[in-house]
C-alpha cells in the first residue's frame, strides 16, 4: 500500500526529523538543567522566527511521516482500503498538523 511517492515522502521527512529530534532533546536537557521557568522559556520563544521555523518544520515533518505510517498500519492490521484508507491518512496527518501547529503558535506568537 506504499508506492514510491509515499515511501520517499516518509524517508525524506525521517531524514529531516533526525537532526530536529537531537535539537529538541538538547533544548529539553538545557531547559531542565538550567532551571528555566515557563516565563523565561516563553521569553525566548515568543516572537522568535528561528524557533517558529525549527518546531514548525518538525511538526510538518512529523505529521507527514506519522500519517503515512498510520496508513500502512490501517491497511495491514485493520484491512482498510480505498477512500477510507486515504481518509485515515489525511485525517491523521491534518490532525497532528493542527495539534502541533497550535502548540508551536502558542509558544512563538507574540
Amino acid at each position: 500500500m506504499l508506492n514510491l511517492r509515499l515511501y520517499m515522502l516518509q524517508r525524506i521527512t525521517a531524514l529531516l526529523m533526525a537532526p530536529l529530534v537531537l535539537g529538541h532533546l538538547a533544548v529539553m536537557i538545557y531547559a531542565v538543567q538550567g532551571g528555566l521557568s515557563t516565563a523565561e522559556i516563553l521569553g525566548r520563544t515568543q516572537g522568535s522566527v528561528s524557533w517558529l521555523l525549527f518546531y514548525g518544520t518538525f511538526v510538518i515533518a512529523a505529521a507527514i511521516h506519522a500519517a503515512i505510517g498510520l496508513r500502512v498500519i490501517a491497511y495491514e492490521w485493520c484491512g482498510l482500503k480505498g477512500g477510507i484508507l486515504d481518509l485515515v491518512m489525511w485525517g491523521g496527518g491534518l490532525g497532528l498538523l493542527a495539534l502541533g501547529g497550535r502548540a508551536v503558535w502558542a509558544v512563538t506568537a507574540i
Partner: protein
Amino acid sequence: MPMTTDQIKVSIQRGEDRTDVFDVPAYENQTVLDVVSWIQQYADPTLSYRFACRVGMCGSCAMMVNGVPRWTCRTHMSKVCDGDTVTIGPLRNLPVIKDLAVDMDPFFDKWTAAEGVHHPSASRDDPIASIDPETPQRVTANAGIECINCAVCYAACDTVATQPDYLGPAALQRAWTLLNDSKDSARTDIIDAISGNDGCHNCHSMGSCTVYCPNELDPMSAIAGLKRETATAFFKRRGNA
C-alpha cells in the same frame, strides 16, 4: 541426529478443519517428502501433493513443516521431528487446491507483474554479447539467479500474509537480478513495475525470506537494493523533469 523411534506420528492438514494423523515407519535418512509419499502409497492414496525432481532443483515440493516453509525433498525428518511427531500442511499465503497441493498461479503472476521476464537488448542476428563475470553488477545479479521458484520465501513473508497483492520476495528478487543484468533492456519498465502500490516499498525488512530460502539466497537485500535504486531514479526523474 539419528531417529530414535520406530514410528512417526504424522499430522497432515487437509483443509481448514481437517487434520489426518498417520503412523509412518521411521528410517534413517528419511526426508519429509519420503514420509508424504509413504502415506500416499501405503496409507491413503487420495492424499494430494506435488513433487518432481526430488533433488532440490525443481521447486515443486515446498510445504509447511511444523509451521515452517521448507523444501520437503531436501529436509530430513531427523531435523524437523518434534519427538516422534510432525505436522505437515500446504504452503502458506497461496490458495489450496487439495490437501498439500497449492495453486501457484498468484505467485507466478506476480513474477510477470514485476517485469520478471527477459527483455532482450539484442536480436539473434547480433553477435553474442561478452559478459565480464567479475563486474560488481554481474556479481550482484549472480547472487540471486539460483532461485528455483519454490515459493518458500513467499510463504514465509508476513507482508504477503497481511497484504495479499504485495509482489513478494521471489518476484522482487527476480526484478533485482534483471535490473543488474546488462543484457536486459527494460530498466525503466522494471522500476515502474516495482514502484506501485504493491511493490518493493511495502517490504518491512523482517527477513523471513532470507532466513527460510532453502538455496540460501538473500531476497531481503535484493529488495533493499530495489528501494535504493528506485530512490535514485526518483531524484533523477525529478531532475530531468
